[in-house]
Each structure stands twice: as C-alpha cells, then as structure tokens.
C-alpha cells in the first residue's frame, strides 16, 4: 500500500541537513557565498518539502500559519529597526559604526542583524505563498 516509504524516509533524512545548510548559509554568509536571502529560501524549501511529502496539515504543526504570517512583516521591521537603532545612537540610518565599541565590529554586528531580517522575511513569505496556493486548491 505505502509505496512512498522511500520518499518518506528519504525526506526525513534530508530535512535536518537542509535546515543545517540553511543556517550555515546564513551565518557563514560573511565568509562564503550566501546570506539571508539564500538561507531563507532554503529554510522555506525545507518546510515546503515536508508539506509536499507529509501533507500541509502536518507542516502547519512545525510552521503554524499565524506565526509565518506574523514573521513576514517582522523581518522588515528587524531590518528597518537596525537602522532606527543606529539613528538613536546618533548615526545615520543603517550606518552600523556605532553598534559596537569599534566601527569594524559595529559593522559586523549590523550586517548580522540585517541578514537576520532578510532571512525572516524571505523564509516566511515563501512559506506563506505556498500555504496560500495550497488553500486555494482545496
């Protein structure tokens, strides 16, 4: 009956590595290729793959729809919020120099938060669009 057992087990084996790779691409983006955008797409791809194989109902248990839709604007707010923080600390919008003791570390920290913002928005938008398509199909 269940001829898709290879697909299911294979998916389960691949999923943790996809998440790990997404995190690697995210946090190693300063040193190697990648960054928030690519990492967000890979992380969303993990949820979408899970939804394709195990059904959307179970995917919504790991990525609840309300949380996903909450994260879509949250990422933009994190990005813009970094700019606002730099403004509050007395610099221009998105001028990261003041985020740490030295300008160099401040910039590294600024890039880190900005990339987090991109990751959050991209990943949640991709998942939300996928959910919207699936709901429409029912």
């Amino acid at each position: 009956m269940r001829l898709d057992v290879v697909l299911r087990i294979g998916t389960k084996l691949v999923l943790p590595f996809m998440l790990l790779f997404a995190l690697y691409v995210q946090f190693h983006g300063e040193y190697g290729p990648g960054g928030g955008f690519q990492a967000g797409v890979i992380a969303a791809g993990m949820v979408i793959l899970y939804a394709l194989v195990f059904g959307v109902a179970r995917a919504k248990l790991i990525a609840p729809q309300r949380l996903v839709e909450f994260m879509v604007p949250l990422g933009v707010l994190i990005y813009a919020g970094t700019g606002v923080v730099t403004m509050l600390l007395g610099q221009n919008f998105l001028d990261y120099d003041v985020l740490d003791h030295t300008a160099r570390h401040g910039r590294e920290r600024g890039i880190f938060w900005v990339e987090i913002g991109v990751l959050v928005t991209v990943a949640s938008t991709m998942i939300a669009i996928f959910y919207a398509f699936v709901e429409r199909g029912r």
Partner: protein
Amino acid sequence: MELLINTALLTLLAAVTIGIARQRNLFGAIILAGIYSFLMASLLILLDAVDVAMTEASVGAGVSTVFLLAALHLTRSLEQKSMKTPVVPLFVALCVGAALVWGTVGLSPFGTPDAPIHQHVAPTYLTNVVKDSGVPNVVTAILADYRGFDTLGETVVIFTGGIGVMLLLRGSGRKRREEREGAEGKAGAKSENEA
C-alpha cells in the same frame, strides 16, 4: 576546457529555451524552466558569481518550480492553441533581440580589468571592505552595508509581493463569495416566508 563547458552549457540553454517555447504541456514547460535555472546556475558558477548562482539554484530552480506547480494545480495543464499566427510579437521580439546583440558590440571585451564597471566604486569596495567591516565576502558587505538601503528596499519588495499573493489568493475570492451566497440564501428564505 572552460570554453568547452561554456559552449555545452550555452547550447543546452538554447535547446531548453526552444523546448519551453514549443512545449504545449505546462507541466513539461515548468520542469524545463527548472532545468533552465540549473543550467543558468552552472554558468554563473563558471563566471565566479557564486552568490548569484546559489540564488538562481534555490529560487529559480527550487521555489519557483514549486510555486508554478502549485499554480498549475489550480488551472488546466494544457496550454490552448493561439488563434492567430504571432507575426507582430515575433517581429518585436526579433527587433529587440537584434538591438540587444547590437548593443553588446559596444561593450568592452569580456573580463577586461579596465572596463568602466571596474573603474567606478568597485576598487574602493575591494580595497576597503576587510578594513572597514571585517567581512571577507565582498558581496555580503556590499549588499548589507554599502548598499544597505537597496537591500532594505528588496526586503520590502518581497514583503509586498508576499502580502499581495496572500490577499489575491485568500483574502477575497471564495470566502467572501460564500458569505454573500449565504446572505442571499437567507434573504431568499425570508421573502418566501413573507409570501
């Protein structure tokens, strides 16, 4: 060797493009579009644009293929034959293509270091990036630091796109129609009672 790989990839790219244009079955067209993206990603790796190649592979081949398949799920999977022979569009496409090819004649040769694009801000970025921000990947530094405003705009674009799709596919449409039908049904029942 690189010439050989480039030629092979570009030939395959052209073949896939013709395949997409000729394909009537939309499922086949979507799969071919995914193959196109992977070929494009390989080409971008050959051009040493690894960041772009990664984006192309994950977005172009991965997520867009899934979205297109999901969209196909909502429609029919066979493209209808067009009634007219597309003479005017073909003419426009040929003209634009010819203009683009003509435009490439004016470009400086491929990979020359003294091309205008390598003279403007790129040297400043390349020399200052590690000193300024301690981020060895220049692409990330430019995207998130030097061009932070652009990337903020891109993020907002993605946000807007997501919101738009959600509104189009979920917000209006079925739910409201059902509500309207429900209201009309109630109204109809009421008038019948009165009669």
